[in-house]
């Protein structure tokens, strides 16, 4: 390269770095011969919101780790704010203003909410080690700033609460506040909406927009409506490569993207392949309930969470529990399963009172629990995970039938359980209670954090189970997903059932439902 060319390239690069805060060139990350990230180039414009989407296992998280320097790229370069950071330490990159949040919530549970933010501020303002040697009144400044940040994320009234007591959505908001305390130029958010209720998603979207200012955001997110409403530019990753890039309209019309990620595009409205005939109309169902809850109260420690829940599920019926985060949906499932230390009220299964039984006795009556966090055991192989639950009823599904329904579990039978992708773990979590022969399934948010195309598969499986006469209680945030599946919906608010909507009225009552859920 001649000197003139070098200077030209240099100044071009300088121009580019004024426009783009983050530029990655030809990034490759190899793990023992497997290319998780395979030649990705990415440019994030200053002051924009850039979204990274793609199916599970596309390499989004690995790319995130590379950009934030948690992992070293095999080849390729990364420039941040005009500096080459390809070999810079992660902590140094963070000091330069690139701050990330994690997929898994990470607050200090025993510190008050305000102190969680203050610790981050302290780190930013005082530096480390001996930086604490300061006049006490400087703490007041920090307090003021911390309160300001809490207001920005809508947590002002929780400042004195222990962070561990916040609901999931609010923990995420707190994380955002601590991230902002570090005064980042570029925020990297890994699934900021994961596990949030519809109402929380709405307010968090608003909040992200309002805090943007002159900052730049790069986020991984599965919720396409969030991506559509927030982002200026979207990169779609598939098999470690950038499949497409552009604004939402370009992406959503892109043939390759539809195939690899969005699926038929109907996952949000209707589950394809699920004809109305697959779901017997509610009138054909027996009148006596299989499961009946009356006046169920539940507590977590001192917190009174359930206030007299009453609901009933008939044999072969699929009912959903809908409601905002913290409404008591998961707690209701846990109460049925006998997992609450303190509860009262009556839970009748097949005419038998089960409220006083231990969880293992309830499981033996044919109740299969699929928890929100999926509960796949890391120290067990996929095959061991599958056969772990003892057969509770004689008609358990055979391993062959399971493999027919979930082929991925056969292919990966020998791998460690938690090495499966999120979607495969969800399938394993459902499969193991089927193998145990449970006929009443309690499914807690089976589509959380999964790519639309996987959501579609899970939907098909649930529809199939329903057609086989399984009785299902489903907790779900994805309204489009439940609309096509459920016979009845119970709406929960603050630990009470406030409404019941028949499946066929769901669309008509849409406005009412959305009001309940705060959409």
């Amino acid at each position, binding site marked *: 390269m001649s000197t003139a060319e070098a200077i030209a390239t240099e100044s071009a690069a300088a121009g580019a770095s004024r426009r783009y805060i983050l530029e990655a060139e030809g990034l490759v990350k190899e793990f023992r011969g497997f290319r998780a990230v395979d030649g990705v180039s990415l440019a994030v414009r200053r002051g924009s919101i850039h979204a990274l989407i793609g199916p599970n296992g596309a390499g989004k998280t690995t790319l995130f780790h590379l950009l934030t320097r948690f992992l070293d790229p095999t080849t390729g370069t990364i420039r941040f704010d005009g500096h080459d950071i390809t070999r810079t330490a992660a902590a140094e990159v963070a000091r330069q203003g690139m701050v990330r949040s994690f997929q898994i919530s990470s607050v200090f549970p025993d510190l008050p909410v305000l102190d969680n933010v203050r610790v981050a501020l302290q780190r930013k303002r005082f530096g480390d080690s001996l930086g604490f040697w300061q006049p006490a009144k400087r703490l007041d400044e920090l307090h003021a700033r911390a309160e300001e940040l809490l207001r920005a994320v809508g947590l002002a009234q929780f400042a004195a609460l222990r962070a561990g007591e916040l609901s999931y959505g609010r923990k995420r908001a707190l994380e955002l506040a601590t991230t902002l305390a570090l005064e980042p130029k570029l925020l990297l958010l890994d699934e900021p909406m994961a596990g949030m209720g519809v109402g929380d998603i709405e307010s968090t979207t608003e909040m992200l927009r309002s805090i943007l200012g002159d900052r730049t955001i790069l986020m991984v997110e599965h919720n396409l409506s969030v991506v559509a409403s927030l982002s200026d530019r979207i990169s779609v990753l598939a098999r470690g490569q950038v499949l497409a890039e552009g604004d939402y309209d370009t992406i959503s019309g892109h043939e390759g993207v539809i195939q690899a990620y969005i699926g038929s595009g109907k996952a949000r409205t209707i589950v394809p392949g699920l004809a109305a005939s697959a779901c017997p109309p509610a009138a054909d169902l027996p009148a006596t309930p299989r499961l009946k809850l009356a006046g169920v109260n539940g507590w977590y420690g001192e917190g009174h969470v359930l206030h007299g829940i009453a609901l009933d599920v008939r044999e072969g019926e699929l009912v959903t529990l809908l409601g905002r985060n913290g409404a008591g949906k998961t707690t209701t499932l846990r109460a049925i399963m006998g997992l609450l230390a303190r509860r009262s009220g009556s839970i009748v299964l097949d005419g038998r009172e089960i409220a006083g039984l231990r*969880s293992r006795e309830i499981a033996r009556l044919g109740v299969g*629990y699929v928890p929100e966090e999926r509960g796949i055991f*890391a*120290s*067990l192989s996929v095959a061991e995970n599958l*056969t*772990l*639950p003892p057969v*509770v009823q004689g008609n358990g599904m055979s391993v062959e039938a399971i493999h027919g329904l979930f082929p991925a579990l056969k292919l990966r039978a020998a791998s460690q359980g938690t090495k499966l992708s999120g979607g495969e773990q969800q399938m394993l979590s459902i499969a193991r209670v089927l193998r*145990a022969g449970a006929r009443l399934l309690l499914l807690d948010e089976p589509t959380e954090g999964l790519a639309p195309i996987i959501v579609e598969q899970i939907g098909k499986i649930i529809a199939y189970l329903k057609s086989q006469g399984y009785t299902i209680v489903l907790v779900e945030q994805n309204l489009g997903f439940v609309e096509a599946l459920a016979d009845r919906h119970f709406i929960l608010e603050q630990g009470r059932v406030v409404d019941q909507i028949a499946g066929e009225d769901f669309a008509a009552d849409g406005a009412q439902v959305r009001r309940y859920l705060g959409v």
Partner: protein
Amino acid sequence: MSAFGIPLEAFLGQLLLGVMNGAFYAVLSLGLAVIFGLLNIVNFAQGAMYMMGAFVAWMLLHYAGAGYWWSLLLAPLIVGAFGVLMERFVIARLHGQDHVYGLLLTYGIALALQGIFRQAYGVSGLPYSVPPELAGGQNLPFMFLPNYRAWVILVSLVACLATWAVVEKTKVGAYLRASTENATLVEAFGVNVPLIVTVTYGFGVALAGFAGVLGAPLYSVHPGMGDDVIIVIFAVVVIGGMGSILGAVFTGFALGLAEGAAKVFYPEGAGMAVFVIMVLVLLVRPTGIFSMAK
């Protein structure tokens, strides 16, 4: 012949002694690791269970005329049964409490047991002879190898491998591993987790009782024999990584060897060798060498 200016025979003799001590460390800390993994209880009574194993062997011989081989079978069962009762009626009450409570409780139990045996049998130690089948030794070209020591090393290795195989390769082991990760969920699948916990505790202390029988002919049977090893086996578990089975086994043998080597090169420091290694490991890898934790 000599190595590093030390007669080869003395050197190898110390190493052999080291491996044998290592075998005890391995079996004892293995039980400790299994118990900690599942119950989250730091079982300070492990040393006392080891001492009890030796005393039970002695009592079986003196009161029932049952010899070494019967003891090898019965003493672990008796100590294990004692452990089961202890878990059911005492330790289970601490379920879900902080580590400190379990540690204090089991330490208290250890002190009480030691006191009882001291009151009954004194502190001077009771003799227990090597079984006739294992008396004598082999004259190897470079050293004399007592048969009983070779037996201890061999049978300890078998016990460790068998435990590992049960935990890693069987259905019961799968319940145990899963319960270690998330006991509530395993129970919600219909598994009787409290039973698994009790059996595991019983098995863990039975291992200690087994080691006690092995140790009876080597070290005199006395109430303080648990004290002699408990601190070292805690160091083994800490170095290996809390709750790691293979870690406990490898580290047990390795520390025994290190101690043996230290006795040759710097006898005054031999007692410290284990703890120097522990400090170094904790500095570099605070969760232990074989730990899966991040």
